[in-house]
């Protein structure tokens, strides 16, 4: 084990456990007002008129007319209005913000706003979206994105095929359920708006606020408050809240805070993209794969958010860890009249991996071979061509990882035994997760900058815009810098980022915080060390450069979609009750390659947390839409795993240092989410002896499959 891997106590553990660390809802400001959104009650409509009540002194209704800049929530496209203008495209869209000192009075005002709607016909499902039901919601064709990539000679593969095996795989919505709901506080200071919130990407929020305010770079400052979980859910939605509060503070010049209650959070924040993926595989007489044809549909909701890039990741992950000689992948992200889909741990990859893993199982099943053995024949290897005709540059340790998972889970014995009768099953699923932004995004869009400061008191301060949100950065960044410098952890300062002080090192997303930003910190620390005695205090700045081995063409989507990958394999064992079809998970095993974990315990925490969250996705977390509203909009109805739902995760890591990651580390925060859901459904398939191609797998669905 490398020294860096040795676990240290997390620097934030004590304050959080004792309850002295303040989160957004714990902050107070003199004269602070509260804000509550007034939202549409229709999924698709034109607003005919709005009747506002008489307002008592000190109360405000903020809406589109108060926006000094562009009335948009600036993300990739500026299609999401900060406040509804005339058209409403999902139920819950923000029409206005009621602000004032007393919460009961705010509710009274909120409830007496009257809106007259002219209803339009909404499109909720993929079928309705593609049929342009009610007319297009976005552009002329309802497509946020439509891409095609091809590798090898797919036409020939299908011409030569002895048979073609098909599957259609569906994945559902998922809500993040960070235990701390969304919240933000804004105030007026030094002639500008300051926002402080529970968020992942300070500069994204800054950008969004700048657009609505129409101000320059100096006109807005964003500070992260200690964030009680995020999982991607605080990558996009804080821009929505931030834009609205910025407008309110700009008008009122007083502190305004919004903290969501759980129902508002579940009902109206972004969700994981539901997907439907159709696989067709050309197989020769001996059962060998000649080629695949993959057709991906993602449901994007009413506005684009990150659908374009989520779709790219789904496509570039579509053939999973397998070296498929020829493939065609088409991907489409559709606009619907639902809450916008957005970022969620895995960012499109879990959908693809559920699909490809399930499909590979089904091929093996058709051919009557052990799926694990069949999958092993197709593992990508160093030097292999990826689905985008790029290369795998690293050693692929899947054979060793497979050996370990077989041994840990006692796979062979169980697989053979459970094949014979109803009730028990074991499933194994593999994953790869491209680290960092897709394609050349790191260079073209993000251009990360980090700074390290040597202070007069010999302490070293880390200045980056990446945030601690539970994943351990407060500890791991300090470890990286302290190890390089050879100074104790206590000498390193790293505070919640404030855009007035830190450079833009990019968002806390895309499994990039350690691999990309951590590497820049390591480089900066090396330089700082070299120059240590030159001056008593100075600053070192580092800028991102693409690793020299990669090349990418964004127009053709060809080349190295990612510089490196995390790899994973998870095995799940289940028992299905023959009467109730309740599934009990009996065992969970996981082996991951994250290069070199920067802290073994932090990484173990990622594995156990990610795997259990993914098992929720695969087995429990049903979120259904009824007339544009989520049926499960409380924590009572939307069920996430409790301590009783799953047994311990037995995990291990293989070491595989990556030269452009700090101490050899790659990304791991999302990879750990990628395998458990397909492993679970594979286990249930074996237990019931029937194929499954939809998650979450709930008892009702099992009953349906069996009858």
């Amino acid at each position: 084990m490398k020294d860096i891997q040795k676990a240290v106590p997390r620097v934030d553990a004590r304050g959080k456990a004792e309850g002295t660390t303040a989160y957004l809802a714990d902050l107070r400001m003199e004269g602070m007002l509260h804000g509550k959104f007034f939202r549409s009650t229709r999924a698709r409509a034109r607003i005919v008129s709005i009747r506002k009540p008489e307002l008592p002194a000190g109360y405000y209704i903020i809406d589109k007319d108060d926006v000094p800049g562009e009335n948009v929530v600036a993300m990739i496209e500026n299609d999401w209005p900060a406040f509804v203008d005339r058209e409403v495209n999902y139920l819950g869209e923000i029409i206005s913000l009621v602000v004032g000192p007393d919460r009961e009075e705010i509710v009274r005002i909120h409830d007496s706003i009257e809106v007259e709607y002219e209803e339009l016909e909404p499109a909720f499902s993929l079928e309705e979206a593609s049929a342009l039901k009610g007319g297009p919601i976005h552009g002329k064709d309802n497509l946020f994105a439509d891409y095609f990539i091809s590798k090898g000679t797919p036409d020939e593969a299908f011409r030569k095929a002895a048979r073609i095996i098909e599957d259609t795989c569906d994945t559902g919505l998922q809500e993040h359920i960070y235990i701390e709901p969304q919240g933000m506080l804004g105030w007026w200071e030094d002639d500008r708006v300051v926002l402080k919130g529970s968020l992942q990407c300070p500069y994204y929020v800054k950008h969004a606020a700048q657009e609505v305010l129409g101000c320059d770079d100096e006109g807005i400052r964003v500070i992260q408050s200690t964030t009680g979980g995020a999982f991607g859910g605080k990558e996009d939605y804080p821009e929505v809240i931030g834009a609205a509060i910025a407008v309110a503070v700009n008008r009122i010049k007083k502190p305004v805070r919004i903290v969501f209650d759980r129902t508002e959070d579940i009902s109206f924040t972004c969700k994981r993209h539901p997907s439907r993926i159709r696989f067709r595989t050309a197989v020769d007489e001996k059962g060998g794969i000649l080629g695949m044809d993959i057709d991906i549909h993602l449901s994007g909701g009413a506005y684009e958010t990150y659908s374009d890039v989520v779709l790219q990741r789904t496509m570039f992950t579509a053939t999973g860890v397998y070296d498929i000689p020829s493939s065609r992948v088409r991907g489409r992200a559709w606009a619907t009249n639902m809450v916008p889909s957005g970022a969620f741990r895995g960012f499109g990859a879990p959908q693809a991996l559920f699909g490809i893993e399930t499909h590979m199982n089904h091929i093996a099943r058709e051919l009557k071979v052990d799926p694990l053995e069949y999958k092993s024949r197709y593992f990508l290897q160093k030097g292999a061509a990826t689905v985008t005709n790029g290369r795998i540059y690293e050693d692929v340790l899947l054979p060793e990882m497979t050996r370990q998972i077989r041994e840990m889970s006692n796979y062979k014995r169980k697989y053979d035994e459970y094949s014979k009768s109803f009730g028990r099953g074991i499933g194994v699923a593999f994953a790869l997760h491209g680290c960092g932004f897709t394609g050349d995004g790191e260079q073209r869009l993000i251009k990360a900058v980090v700074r390290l400061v040597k202070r007069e008191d010999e302490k070293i301060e880390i200045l980056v815009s990446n945030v601690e949100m539970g994943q351990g950065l407060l500890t791991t960044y300090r470890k990286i810098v302290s190890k390089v410098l050879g100074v104790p952890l206590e000498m390193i300062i790293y505070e919640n980022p404030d855009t007035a002080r830190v450079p833009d090192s990019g968002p806390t997303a895309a499994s990039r915080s350690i691999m990309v930003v951590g590497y820049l910190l390591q480089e900066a620390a090396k330089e700082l060390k070299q120059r240590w005695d030159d001056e008593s205090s100075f600053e070192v700045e580092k800028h991102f450069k693409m690793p020299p081995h990669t090349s990418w063409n964004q127009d053709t989507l060809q080349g190295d979609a990612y510089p490196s990958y995390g790899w994973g394999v998870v095995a799940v064992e289940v028992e299905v009750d023959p009467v109730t079809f309740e599934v009990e998970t009996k065992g969970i095993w996981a082996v991951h390659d994250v290069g070199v974990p920067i802290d073994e315990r932090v990484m173990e925490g990622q594995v156990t947390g990610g795997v259990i969250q993914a098992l929720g996705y695969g087995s429990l977390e049903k979120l259904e839409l009824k007339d544009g509203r989520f049926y499960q909009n409380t924590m009572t109805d939307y069920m996430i795993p409790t301590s009783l739902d799953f047994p311990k995760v037995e995990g291990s890591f293989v070491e595989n240092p990556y030269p452009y990651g700090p101490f050899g580390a790659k990304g791991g925060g999302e990879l750990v989410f990628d395998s458990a859901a397909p492993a679970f459904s594979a286990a249930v398939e074996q237990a019931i002896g029937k194929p499954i191609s939809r998650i979450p797998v709930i008892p009702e669905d099992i009953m349906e499959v069996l009858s």
Partner: protein
Amino acid sequence: MKVRFSLNGKEISVDVDSLRRLLDVIREDLGLTAIKEGCGEGECGACSVLIDGKIVNSCLVPIAQVGGAQVLTPEGLKGTPRGKCIVDGFTEAGSVQCGFCTPGMLMAAEAILTKNPNPTEAEIREGLSGNLCRCTGYDMIVRGIEIAAEKGEGLW
């Protein structure tokens, strides 16, 4: 209405609407913000306190109900030998990630160990089942409580 109760060992009296949630009295009126609101509907346990030694979701308790009771929050527990022992266990085991559930987990751990100073894994999981954590998958919280039980021999 006036309600008298003991909070973290001190007798106090508050004069509030009888239906006001204990959670709001503690967090807003008294300014003790260790316990959190994660759901407001009795599902997540982020607002856990001990009332007369029993773990309770303070978001479901109208203040009128605590008259004469002993209420313990993380502010009262953290400085005691038991509280320190659990916090140490949590720190050593990596039980804390985003931390939003953790003060509630601290109270749950105290309740578990008070009931049984040497709990099995199954008993710990049972005792944590009213407290949701979205980050850790629970394994390391369970481990943290096991460590506290080992090191805190005699405390409970």
